[in-house]
């Protein structure tokens, strides 16, 4: 039931919204993609902890019904599904999210039933944990890479390829000069990736047991 895969954590939340309020939530998310609420996303971008996050608003009739044999859903609330992939554990970073983008969080969970607001922390933390669903299988193509590493890697590859073509046939002296330019330009990206630190004793123990069982 691990929410952890390497350096990344899977957060799943489901929360109800009254049907007549849903249009506001949909509007908020639409506006978040425009200049109106772009600043809220700027906070998320600066946090740089998140690989991908999404919110899906599903009304009762939008729950897929694929066959007559499948009973029709009779629920009345609309449900918001939240999925996030971020670096660090929820316990560790809930403080960071709540302190850095409290108004953004309030917009994204606007009038969800019993949502207490992102400040103070303890009720917010309890609400999210109460409505959290544990992941049954979590996969990342790069467990050793945090979101920051992914972005740093892109910059290094791009610069490396340019560097290779710019330095063909140069003297050693000129090569060195170009090389110094390269490592200076990328000095904040040159660092080695290793496994994640242990963010959870429980998760670490489960991993150990799995490894033992696999022999």
């Amino acid at each position, binding site marked *: 039931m691990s929410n952890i895969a390497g350096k990344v954590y899977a957060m799943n939340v489901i929360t109800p919204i009254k049907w007549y309020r849903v249009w506001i939530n949909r509007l908020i998310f639409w506006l978040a993609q425009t200049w109106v609420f772009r600043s809220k996303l700027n906070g998320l971008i600066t946090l740089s902890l998140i690989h991908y996050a999404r919110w899906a608003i599903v009304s009762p009739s939008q729950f897929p019904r694929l066959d007559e044999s499948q009973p029709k859903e009779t629920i009345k609330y609309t449900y918001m599904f939240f999925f996030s*992939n971020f670096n660090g554990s929820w316990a560790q970073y809930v403080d960071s999210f709540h302190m850095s983008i409290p108004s953004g969080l309030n917009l994204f969970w606007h009038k969800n039933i019993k949502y207490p607001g992102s400040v103070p922390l303890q009720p917010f933390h309890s609400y999210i944990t109460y409505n959290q669903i544990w992941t049954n299988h979590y996969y990342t193509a790069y467990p050793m890479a945090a*979101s920051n590493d992914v972005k740093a890697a892109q910059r290094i590859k791009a610069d490396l390829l340019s560097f290779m073509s710019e330095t063909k046939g140069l003297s050693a002296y000129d090569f060195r000069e170009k090389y110094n330019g390269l490592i200076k330009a990328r000095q904040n990206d040159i660092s080695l990736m290793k496994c994640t630190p242990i963010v959870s004793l429980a998760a670490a123990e489960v991993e150990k047991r799995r490894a033992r069982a696999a022999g």
Partner: protein
Amino acid sequence: MPNKSGNAYGMTLLCPIINGSKNHQSYADIIRDHLENLPLDSASPMAKVPNTYLCRFYVLNDVFYEGYPAKEEHLKSRYLVFSTNFHGEPDEYLQGMWSHALKEVREIWQYCVGFKAQGTADDFVAYMRKCQVDNALFFNGSTDDSLAEQLKSLYLKQEFSRFVYENEGASDEDLQNAFMEFVKRTDPENLNGPTWVPGHNE
């Protein structure tokens, strides 16, 4: 389009599970058990699916009762929830699932309503699209490069960082020679050359 961000796509699927049981276990529980026991990292079946960045599965038993004065209500079916982040177009991605992880896909989805284990790739795509729900917002704080491109980038970051540290203080000639060796070994322009394997974890 809230399912896309650049070339990255966020697909959210709610796949209804057949209300039934087998060997005294509900289909939903069987699916969950199965998911829990799937191998991880590069051995995960999803590591075989081209262009998968990150994805997850969970079984949605029911909605939660928030407590008075909220109303208590229940779902009539349980759902296999599959949330995946990938590079490229959705139909192509789903085709990729069918062609590269057919056995595992059948095992995971076999108890879902409307899933045809013996169907075609097109049947699978159509089925999954019926299960898809649109995102209200898809936030991309990471890459939208192809997976091969991204894995190569990560491989190069790792190898080049090692190179820089190892060659600190080298003479100009030694540095240049070492770099030529580095290029030969790591083949930076070739996505099919040395790179990180999907799900690679030390």
